[in-house]
């Protein structure tokens, strides 16, 4: 039997330099429970290092935490890479790190805190996570899909770091699994405003960098259970699974 599940597939943590320090694993988990979310994906900039801590902090609870990251391509397009398991996410991270130049300046960009499930600081990540990977978007999508992940174009309704702001329109060669809207724009309006994206599934996420924003924008999914595999089916509209449209 299928039921409705609410997901926010774009949540940053204190690892993102622009993420608030309050975005710690336990506080995010508590917030997610308050908001009655069923599924979240942790997507920090170019890194998955805080995913294990959030998964552990949420362990035993009812909310499902999916591992992911928000990759910045060399066109400066943000792409969510969401996976079923940590091994896949860390394989993606290895490729990203191999192609991510620069070192973070905390005074300029902010701290990059690697935390554990008790909200203790484990380390400071020194790579320039706010930077761009020196690979084009098609290579990033190919790697996400090779690893079995989902590639979602971030906040296509924004004027920066979106596939549409950077490339003008979505080329047919880019097989995103979904397009993210950071607003509550109805599906019909989104299809009209972004004709090159009209054939894609739209999902809504918060892109939260602050605790108060977690779960502020979400999509509802018709699933058998709250898992990666079911989300995967929903984005492909398989076996009755789907993302509920907003009208």
């Amino acid at each position, binding site marked *: 039997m299928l039921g409705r599940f609410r997901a926010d597939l774009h949540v940053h943590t204190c690892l993102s330099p622009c993420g608030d320090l309050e975005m710690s694993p336990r506080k995010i988990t508590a917030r997610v429970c308050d908001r009655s979310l069923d599924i979240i994906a942790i997507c920090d900039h170019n890194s998955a290092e805080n995913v294990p801590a959030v998964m552990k902090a949420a362990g035993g609870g009812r909310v499902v935490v999916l591992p992911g990251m928000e990759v910045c391509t060399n*066109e400066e397009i943000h792409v969510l890479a969401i996976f079923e398991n940590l091994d896949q996410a860390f394989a993606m991270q290895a490729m990203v790190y191999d192609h991510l130049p620069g070192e973070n300046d905390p005074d300029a960009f902010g701290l990059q805190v690697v935390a554990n499930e008790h909200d203790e600081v484990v380390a400071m990540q020194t790579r320039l996570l706010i930077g761009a990977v020196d690979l084009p978007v098609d290579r990033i999508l190919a790697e996400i899909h090779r690893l079995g992940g989902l590639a979602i174009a971030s906040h296509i309704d924004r004027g920066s770091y979106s596939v*549409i702001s950077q490339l003008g*329109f979505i080329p047919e060669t880019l097989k995103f699994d979904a397009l993210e809207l950071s607003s509550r724009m109805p599906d019909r309006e989104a299809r009209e405003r972004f004709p090159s994206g009209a054939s894609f599934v739209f999902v809504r996420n918060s892109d939260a960098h602050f605790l108060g924003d977690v779960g502020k924008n979400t999509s509802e999914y018709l699933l058998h259970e709250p898992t990666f595999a079911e989300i995967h089916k929903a984005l492909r509209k398989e076996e009755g699974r789907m993302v509920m449209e907003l009208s």
Partner: protein
Amino acid sequence: MTMKLRRVVESLQLSLRCGGDRLDQDITGGYAGDLLSDVIANGQAGNLWVTMQVHANIVAVAVLKDLAGIVIVQGRQPADETLKKASEENIPILVSPLPAFETVGRLYTLLEAGA
């Protein structure tokens, strides 16, 4: 201000990657930008477009806006797909070894002097 594309290519020492048979067209000015959405909104027909984007979509934007050609800065190499599409559409693709600031500065000075 108009000028033959050929003169720009020679003066700025741009390397021609495709569209060489269009060097005798006039360019009407320049436009610089890396956000293709912005170029779609503000580029003008006949402009020579200076960018560091190398994705194949730059060709589609040049066709859409009837641009005179594309100058890719900092010696960045256009993707294979970009060159393929540019050949099909006959859009001149030029590569400048200089960064965007210097490339635009020289292009602007040249066009002003030639006007």
